[in-house]
């Protein structure tokens, strides 16, 4: 080939590359479908609904599996509605002798057993999956497969033969039994075992079976025994159908029964979560085969459900794709909601069949900046607001609501904010001699510290004011929370009617409390300064350093010297277990919208030191404990509110924690993305949402026209630099 031909070819290729330049990360035509584009920053690892307790995994699991119930998409306060069942079951109460109690709401102490009978809707089908594929004789096609049989397959979707079957009550019962399997380490085992009859015994039966089998295998293998490798290659096959289990029983093809040992209405909330979804035995048999394990075609990455979507692509470090389940049962967009929903357009799609979005694509984005830029260019349909871009996206003026910046408004972006049902709290160890204890002086010391550590200032400095100052453990939006002036914690806060928010009492008042606590000017009776220790495991975190300095400065205002005691995670855990600490920081994210889920953090028998429970402060006040037991099983109503009010008064006075804040979540949505009412309890919301692909395509084209002039200039500049150099070399080479 002549050099001129080569040059021409190179120029043509370069021109083709330059002319084809685009920053569109999707393939041609991909954005023209009803597809939702989003990103993820953390790869999901456990898609097994019995194992996962992470929100980023729930976002996938809850769209493939379906629990018996779900939360209403529009109604607030949150309301449970049937999903795969005929109705929401009513509890049936029996006394301790097994006699049916006819009262609708009997006293907890009279109850010996509670039953919920749940009727599954007939005709609900699983999505197409090879585990259901059968031959002409009705035998599973993919039983006893070898590696050669499944060569080239990565996900169930790749298999040639697929089948389906109807959802049955036995599938729910099977999954509940899995929650007791010790090899699964179900995160809610410790809670469920307290209520479900026979649950702990079932767990112990499985555990003993494993121990016996392990001992046998170890004896056979001798010194070369490697338990982990052995169990990876020959996993224990648990006979879930075998042992009798009273806690969950199948009554007929479409009916099953849950039996509890006490009144526990929160079980219905748990049953909205993916722990209680149906699990077909065929899926377990399919995925437990040695060849499947070897190829990693396992339940942890291959969900099998009846939900609106099917996981069709799963590369957890690159991309995940869900497609509409063609077998999805009748499910329709709600026709009613809260006042204002119709005006906000949330009822425009009332009565439409769900899901409306055909496909969802989630791409891995490790860096928040890349994610944010793609959102601005229209390549992601929604986004959160990271701290580093907050100022460019949101105008937050003192005393006014958060507003979008002009750039965001010009792009038609919508901002929706909602208070998350979470609590961030600074804990005092109630077992500690200085910051703990229940005497009036000790309570006043904690109240004074609560006033000094003013979280309104914290919100302004560290969180772009994205939070609500805490007045107690219950976050806004949950039953029991009191808003406005009547919700003020009278010991540490006051209501500011001008700015309509809670503010901390003055430092002078805190100093007065210090005097009453026996620490005038922060000095102990012997005249030495009062020193308290902040225990943490965040030494390497630069964000922590700034926060600690702030806290140190705030406590200095009342004369207290705050010192940090940083340790590694192991020591930190040990300190917490043994109660050998003074002040720590913690957080709690709601599992379900019930005040019990927050008030139990201060219930004495849940003490971390005594029972390893979630009460890390080890707070144990008799009156509170009695009220908690009463409140726990009450129906929402004036009686329950009164009990909660009393409990709040007690914890506000005793101040076992500083109720720091409840975070406010900021979500941004492009104009083509519809029906995105904030919902903090559910992860299966995409089925209600809709995309206007034509509008998206137009906006993407408008915002992403390639600018080639600088490239041409750069090429010209390069040529200008290279040509004289080449000429000089040529001349020197030829001795000219």
């Amino acid at each position, binding site marked *: 080939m002549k050099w001129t031909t080569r040059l021409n070819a190179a120029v043509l290729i370069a021109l083709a590359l330059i002319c084809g330049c685009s*920053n569109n*990360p999707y393939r041609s035509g991909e954005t023209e479908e009803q597809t939702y584009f989003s990103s993820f920053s953390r790869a999901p690892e456990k898609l097994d609904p019995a194992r996962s307790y992470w929100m980023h995994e729930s976002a996938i699991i809850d769209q493939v599996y379906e629990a018996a119930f779900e939360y209403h998409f529009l109604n607030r306060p949150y309301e449970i509605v049937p999903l795969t069942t005929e109705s929401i079951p009513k509890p049936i109460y029996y006394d301790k002798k097994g006699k049916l109690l006819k009262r609708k709401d009997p006293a907890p102490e009279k109850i010996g057993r509670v039953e919920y009978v749940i009727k599954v809707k007939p005709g609900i089908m699983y999505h197409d999956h090879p585990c259901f594929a059968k031959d002409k004789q009705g035998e599973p096609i993919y039983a006893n497969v070898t590696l050669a049989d499944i060569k080239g397959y990565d996900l169930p979707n790749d298999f040639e033969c697929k089948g389906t079957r109807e959802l049955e009550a036995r599938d729910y019962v099977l999954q509940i039994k899995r929650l007791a399997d010790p090899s699964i380490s179900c995160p809610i085992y410790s809670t469920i075992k307290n209520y479900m009859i026979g649950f702990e015994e079932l767990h112990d039966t499985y555990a003993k079976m494993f121990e016996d089998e392990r001992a046998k295998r170890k004896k056979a293998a*001798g010194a070369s025994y490697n338990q982990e490798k052995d169990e990876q290659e020959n996993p224990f096959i648990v006979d879930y159908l075998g042992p009798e289990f009273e806690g969950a029983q199948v009554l007929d093809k479409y009916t099953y029964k849950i039996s509890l040992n006490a009144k526990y209405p929160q079980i219905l909330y748990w049953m909205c979560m993916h722990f209680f979804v149906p699990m077909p035995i065929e899926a377990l048999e399919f995925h437990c085969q040695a060849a499947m394990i070897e190829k990693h075609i396992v339940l942890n990455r291959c969900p099998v459900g009846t939900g609106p979507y099917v996981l069709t692509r799963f590369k957890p470090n690159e991309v995940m794709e869900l497609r509409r389940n063609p077998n999805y049962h009748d499910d329709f967009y709600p026709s009613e909601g809260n006042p204002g929903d119709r005006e906000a357009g949330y009822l425009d799609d009332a009565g439409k069949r769900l899901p409306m979005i055909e496909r969802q694509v989630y791409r891995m*984005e490790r860096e928040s900046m890349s994610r944010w830029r793609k959102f601005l260019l229209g390549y992601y349909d929604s986004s959160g607001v990271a701290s580093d871009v907050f100022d460019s996206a949101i105008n937050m003026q003192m005393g006014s609501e958060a507003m979008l910046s002009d750039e965001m408004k010009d792009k038609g972006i919508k901002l929706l904010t909602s208070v998350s049902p979470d609590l961030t709290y600074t804990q005092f160890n109630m077992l500690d001699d200085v910051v703990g204890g229940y005497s009036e002086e000790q309570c006043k010391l904690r109240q004074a510290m609560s006033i000094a550590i003013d979280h309104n200032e914290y919100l302004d400095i560290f969180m772009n004011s994205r939070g609500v100052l805490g007045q107690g453990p219950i976050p806004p939006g949950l039953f029991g929370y009191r808003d406005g002036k009547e919700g003020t914690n009278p010991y540490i806060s006051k209501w500011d009617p001008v700015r309509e928010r809670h503010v901390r009492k003055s430092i002078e008042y805190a100093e007065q409390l210090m005097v009453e606590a026996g620490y005038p000017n922060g000095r102990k009776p012997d005249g030495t300064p009062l020193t308290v220790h902040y225990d943490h495991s965040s030494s390497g975190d630069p964000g922590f350093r700034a926060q600690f300095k702030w806290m140190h400065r705030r406590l200095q205002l009342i004369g207290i010297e705050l010192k940090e005691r940083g340790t590694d*995670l192991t020591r930190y855990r040990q300190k917490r277990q043994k109660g050998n600490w003074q002040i720590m920081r913690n957080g709690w994210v709601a599992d379900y919208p019930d005040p019990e889920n927050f008030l139990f953090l201060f219930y004495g028998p849940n003490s971390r030191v005594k029972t390893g429970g979630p009460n890390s402060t080890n707070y144990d006040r008799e009156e509170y404990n009695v009220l908690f037991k009463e409140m726990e099983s009450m129906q929402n109503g004036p009686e329950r509110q009164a009990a909660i009010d009393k409990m709040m008064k007690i914890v506000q006075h005793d101040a076992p924690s500083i109720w720091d804040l409840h975070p406010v979540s900021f979500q941004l949505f492009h104009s083509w993305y519809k029906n995105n009412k904030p919902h903090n309890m559910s992860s299966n919301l995409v089925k209600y949402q809709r995309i206007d692909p034509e509008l998206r395509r137009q906006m993407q084209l408008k915002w992403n026209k390639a600018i*080639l002039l600088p490239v041409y200039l750069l090429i010209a500049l390069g040529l200008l630099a290279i040509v004289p150099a080449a000429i000089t070399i040529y001349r020197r080479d030829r001795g000219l």
Partner: protein
Amino acid sequence: MLTYIIRRVLYAIPILLGVNLIIFGLYFGLNSPDDMAETILGEKRVTQEQIDDWKRQHNYHLPKMYNTEERGLGFFTQTIFWQKSMRLFIFDFGKSDTAEGKSIGDEIRSRIPNSLAMTIPIFLASLFVNLFFSMIVAFYRGTYLDNSMRFICVFMMSISGMFYIIGAQTVAAQMLKLVPISGFDAGLYKIKFLILPILVGLLRSFGGAVRYYRTVFLEEINKDYVRTARAKGLGENKVLFKHALKNAMIPILTNVVVGIPFLIMGSLMLERFFSIPGLGGYMIDAIGKQDFAVVRSMAFLGSVLYVVALIFVDISYTLVDPRVRLK
């Protein structure tokens, strides 16, 4: 040469054992199996009993280095070190400690092509560009071009790698809208995602490499044989590319071949910012997730590749310099 290679391979065994021991010691000096279990299972509602179950399933219930409860071989074999780290010597990386439980070997195999898709073009392009420019500046030594280029090189070396990445994403992807900001895709679709990281990789290496190669070439072109070649009337092209380049190969090869393991191990920062699912991010993710199985495997793999690369460097010396003999 065969004897030499065998001897070097045998030397590698204690080195790799030492690396394994250091990784094991460092890891368990900072973490305990309880921490690992809590990180993987999550802290919320998890009981000590479940943490113990997890440790049992993953062999972390065993003593670390020796097991006094076992007799005979079991004294050494029924320990975390033996069961976890010694398997690496037969390249059995095992499975990830996280609940996903994926085979580490499979994961490495699936990620290597992604890393190589980015690092090989960077490697080749930067080798070509950097050698070319360094020869030019060596050729024009002492002129305004040499001085300007030295200034540019020092300037480029002084800029943080992060600046190149963020700057390139801002200018090329966000402002000029020429290439995607980040991402990855299968087959030929991945090309558009690789343009920017390759360009950034090239720019990042330019300053340091040009300065290094310039020094190497300057040393060569001041030697007598170059003067003789010129005196015989050879053109500059031949002097530079045939004579000087060939004789400057030893330091160049050392620099180039030792860099080969890093091609396979990927580029941590580029992979992270451009969302490329290569090996660079695998180890960092594993450290964050307290996945000791992946951490030890990646550290072992890195050590093996480095040892192999050094052997190759030695062998390559014999190819470019007939005076070198391996005994």
